[in-house]
């Protein structure tokens, strides 16, 4: 489906690494056609999520201060952000970590490095946006 026909979603990308933040943003905007806002740390992410109510959050796992899982728990604790679907992005390889993250209740755990051309499609798939758009 052509990206222009897709519904434009608002996604919050959280990563402490500026380069990754930028690449992810370009991928989601240019390939996926979404509107992207970014945060460099967990605290900033919480503030933005609460304020902007994005449609989804792509959250890095290892971050200084509040890390990904901790940020997710805070999001869950907050009624205004509880329902925002969260996808974790991690460079960690251990499957034990992945299982732990999934158990927290995130929608999916994606690996770094990722293919920027297919990332938007994967996100849409995970969050069921394709079906939703079909129905429009």
């Amino acid at each position: 489906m052509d990206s222009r026909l897709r519904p434009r979603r608002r996604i919050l990308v959280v990563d402490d690494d500026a380069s990754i933040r930028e690449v992810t943003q370009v991928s989601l905007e240019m390939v996926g056609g979404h509107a992207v806002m970014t945060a460099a740390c967990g605290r900033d992410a919480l503030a933005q999520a609460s304020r902007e109510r994005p449609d989804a959050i792509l959250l890095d796992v290892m971050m200084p201060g509040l890390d990904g899982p901790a940020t997710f728990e805070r999001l869950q604790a907050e009624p205004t952000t509880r329902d925002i679907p969260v996808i974790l992005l991690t460079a960690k390889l251990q499957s034990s970590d992945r299982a732990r993250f999934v158990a927290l209740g995130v929608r999916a755990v994606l690996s770094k490095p990722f293919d920027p051309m297919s990332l938007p499609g994967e996100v849409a798939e995970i969050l069921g946006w394709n079906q939703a758009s079909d129905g429009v």
Partner: protein
Amino acid sequence: MKAPAVGARGSSRASGFSGQRGAPRPSGASGLDQFNPEHDGLPRPWGVRALIVLGLALAAVYAVRAPGHWGGPRVDAFFAQWLYDAAAAIGGLLCAWRAIRVSEDRATWSLIAAAFVLEVAGNTFYAVRYGVSDGPVPSAADGFWVAFYLPMAAALVLRIRAAASVAGAVIFDILIAIGALGSVSAAFVLQAVIGGTDRSIAGYASTLAYPLGDLVLAALVLQLAAASAWRLERATALMAACFVAWGVTDTVYAFQTAHATYVPGGVLDLGWVVPFVLFGVAAWMSPDARISVREAPRLGALGVPVCFALLALGMLIYSGMADVNVLAVGLASGALMCVIARFVVTFRSYLAALANTRLVLETAYDPFMSFEASGVITDWNAAAQASFGWSREEVMGRSLVETFLPEARREAHRRLIARFLATGDEDVLRRRLERTVLHRDGHEMPIELTISPVATEYGYTFHAFMRDITERRKVERAKNEFVAIVSHELRTPLTSIRGSLGLLAGGVLSASPTKAERMLKIALENTDRLVRMVSDILNLERIESGAVDLIYRPCDGGQLVRSAAETMRPAALLAGVTLEVAGRGGALEADPDQIIQTLTNLLSNAIKFSPGGSTVWVESEGLGDDVVFRVRDEGRGIPSEQLERVFERFAQVDSSDARDKGGTGLGLAICRSIVEQHAGRIWVESGDPRGCRFQFTVPVVRPDQPRATPPAGTQTGDSELVGHAGLA
């Protein structure tokens, strides 16, 4: 001379008993003391040889003279009496001489010589007091003759203690030997003595004292032979023969006395006279250095009872077959002795094996325990005590499950044992396992263990060898963490590279040259970062594995500090941090590139963690044999408990520091490796009032070269530093 002689002869020889101890002991002062039995024979002065010849000649004269030859029984007995005394004196003299001239076995030979002195004293007293007529029984002379046994027994005990290793078995053997000999002896002598001519109680006692004394000495000799694993030296064998002769003579004497048939000066006395001289010969026999242990004569366990059975037979024949029952008793005693000896041998080897097993377990490096199927702990070694805190006394008899296993493991353990007992299914038994157990203080600790079931007549016993793997786990965890961190750290720049290049290749940026250019820049920057990280990891590995050869050159600490500072000045400028350089001093021999890298790493850290507007100081100073480098900042500092840890790989104070500050997490680990390669030391202290101060020393002279006077100028350059409040 009569009875007196009886008691007198029991001596033994000492040096012979030392045969099984192969190596010569370090000896004392005099020239003779220095002899080496392995190579030299025991040196025999001519006097010794003369005495031996004289003694043997006396014995020969005694043997060949016909009774009455020297003018009637009384004269004959007179000569016999003094001949007897002379033989004992010669034997004693030879033993004493040996004790004085040779340090080896000195105590033993001194005691034997003392026994001979008592013997001679008793004989002389008897001869002077009673002449050749029959004195009273007992007489004062009996005191000397009975006393003879004391130093003789002491000499033997001394030898046994040197030869035997299992004290309990020694005592047991002695008791067995005395019992068996006693039964043989009783069959012949006791019966005869008690049923013999009229005697006072004291008379019986003194007559019996001699064969009984011989009995004790025989037991001791036997024990000595057993303690020497039945390997008797020639000298030992000679002494044993002397002793047997005395034992037989004493027994016959007791028998004849009981039947009033003993005639002083008769041929029986030869059984006392000859051994006196032979003891002297034994004293001067050279140790059997030429006989190896394998070649040495061995007296089997069966030999002992057989000897006694033969002795019994001989006695019976001598007594004119007076009582055939005696033979039966003697043979039965011999057979009994045989069984007992076999038992003793078995029991001793069992005790020895047990002691050996215990020793192996107690000295084992790994913890060991045994437990029964019921779970009761039945063995616990010293290593187990060291590892788990429980002493053997505390833990023996306690329940394994409740003492040692964490709550969660208890049921599984019970099921495992129950299943094994029911079905023989060994499951995890006899396999290497890793489990968690409880230390005495309650903390859980990982161990590796193998449990082996052993069937006994009382059911199964389980033996477990264990090993505390706490440290190994730590290392494994650290290794895993290191791999995980390295992997993560490498994947982070790769993500950016893969992402930016993927977007470029995907063509989505063709309409947006600015973005495309930006993506290229990201790819480039992260490639640099990746390269930096890979080279840091490789560098560290190479330095730590010693693959990097340091190129030592004479250099100046101050110059190195300035070079590093120049390299880092742009970074400081960018961070708004003032860089103060205060180092001139410190001529040294080092690899300048490596030292500059160390300083650069430290400065880079200091700048990264310093707030804008603050200052970072770097200096060098010659201090004795070392040049000290210092880098100090006013940053957030390092918690005191982490001061040691910061030099470990990826051991950032905050796990996010590497990312946050753009470091690789390996800088300080590299610094430490370089400094240690230079045989220097690196450490960090908390700053005052804030920040921290890294310091490292490098020896003025390279570590593989002898220290010389430090090159001129080592102590220079301090003037700038002295006034520098920030350092020191």
